[in-house]
C-alpha cells in the first residue's frame, strides 16, 4: 500500500517535470534532425538516456562521425554530475530493498528527478522515482519526436514560459528547507552567488556549465560539510518538523 502511494506521489510530482521536458526536448528533436537523424532515432536516443546536455553533445558527435573513445570520454565528462547525484541517492534510498531497484533507479537519475527524490521525507522509496520517471520520460521522448517531425509546434511565448518550469521545481526543492534551516539557506545563497561569480569571471565563464556545477558542488558542499557537519538524528528531525 505504502509503495503504491509513493508511486502515485511520484507521478504527481513528475507532471511539472514532464511539461518542462516536453518543451526542452523540442530543441533536441530539431537538433537531431539537423544532424541527419530520423525522428525514430532521435526518440530512441531520448528514451535511452534522459540526458539533455549529454544528448546535445552526442548529436554533435554523431553528425561529425566521432569515434568510440571520443564518445565515451565526452559523455563521461558531460554527465559527471550524475556521479555525485547517484552517490547521494545511494545513501537516501531504503537500504533493505533488493539490489535490482538500484539498477532501475539509475535510469531515472536526472537533475529534476534527483531533486524531487532527495526532497522526500525520510528514506527514499524507489517507487517514488519510478512514478516520476513514468510521467517525465514520455514528455521527454514525445517532445523529441515532435521536435524532429515538425519543429517548434508551440508559440515562442509558451516555449519561453515553459523554460522556467524546471528551474521552478529546483526552487521548490531548495527553498522550503531553507525556511526551517538557516545553514541550508546560507548554502543556497552562497551557491547562487558563487555560480554568478563563475559566469562573470573572464576565463572561468568559458568552462562548460556542467563542469562548473561539479567544481562548485564539490567545493561548496565540501566547505559546508566541514564547517557544519550534519548531526544525523537532529538533522533528520529538523527536516521533518
Amino acid at each position, binding site marked *: 500500500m505504502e509503495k503504491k502511494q509513493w508511486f502515485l506521489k511520484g507521478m*504527481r*510530482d513528475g*507532471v511539472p517535470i514532464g511539461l*518542462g521536458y516536453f518543451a526542452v526536448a523540442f530543441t533536441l528533436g530539431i537538433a537531431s534532425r539537423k544532424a*541527419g537523424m530520423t525522428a525514430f*532515432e532521435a526518440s*530512441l536516443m531520448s528514451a535511452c*538516456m534522459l540526458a539533455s546536455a*549529454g544528448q546535445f553533445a552526442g548529436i554533435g*558527435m554523431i553528425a561529425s*562521425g566521432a569515434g*568510440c573513445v571520443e564518445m565515451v570520454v565526452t*559523455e563521461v565528462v558531460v*554527465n559527471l554530475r550524475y*556521479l555525485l*547525484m*547517484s*552517490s*547521494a541517492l545511494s545513501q537516501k*534510498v531504503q537500504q533493505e530493498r533488493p*539490489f535490482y531497484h538500484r*539498477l532501475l*533507479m*539509475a535510469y531515472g*537519475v536526472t537533475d529534476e528527478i534527483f531533486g524531487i527524490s532527495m*526532497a522526500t521525507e525520510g528514506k527514499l522509496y524507489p517507487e517514488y522515482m519510478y512514478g516520476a520517471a513514468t510521467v517525465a520520460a514520455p514528455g521527454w521522448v514525445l517532445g523529441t519526436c515532435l521536435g524532429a517531425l515538425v519543429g517548434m509546434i508551440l508559440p*515562442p*511565448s509558451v516555449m*519561453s*514560459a*515553459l*523554460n*522556467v*518550469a*524546471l*528551474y*521552478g*521545481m*529546483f*526552487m*521548490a*526543492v*531548495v*527553498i*522550503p528547507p531553507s*525556511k526551517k534551516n538557516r545553514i*541550508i539557506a546560507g548554502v*543556497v545563497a552562497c*551557491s*547562487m552567488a558563487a*555560480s554568478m561569480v563563475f559566469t562573470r569571471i573572464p576565463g572561468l565563464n568559458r568552462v562548460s556549465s556542467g563542469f562548473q556545477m561539479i567544481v*562548485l*558542488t564539490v567545493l561548496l*558542499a565540501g566547505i*559546508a*560539510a*566541514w564547517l557544519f*557537519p550534519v548531526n*544525523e538524528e537532529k*538533522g533528520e528531525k529538523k527536516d521533518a518538523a
Partner: protein
Amino acid sequence: MRPNIYASLLVMFLTIYAVRALPLTLLRKEIQSPFIRSFLYYVPYVSLSVMTFPAILSATASFWSGLAGFAAAVILAWVDGNLFRVSIGACIVVYLVELFV
C-alpha cells in the same frame, strides 16, 4: 555514418547509464564518515542552486521575464512549496511579463 548510428547510441547509452548506476550499486552500505555523509547531504542544495542561478535569467525571451520567473519561483516556494504550483506559477508569471512588458 549511417550504419553506425545505432552503435553510437548504444555506446552513449552504456556510458551514461554506467555513470548513473555505478555509485548507486557500489555504495550499498551506509557510509559511516560524518564528513562524507554531510557532504552528500549538502550536494542537492548546492547543485540545484548552482544550476538555477544565474541560468534562469537567460532561459526566457528576456532578462526581465527570467528575473520575474526566478522571483516568482522563490516566493511561491517560500509561501507554498508545492512542486507543481511553484513550477506552473513561475511559468505563468513569465508568460504574463512577456505579454505586457
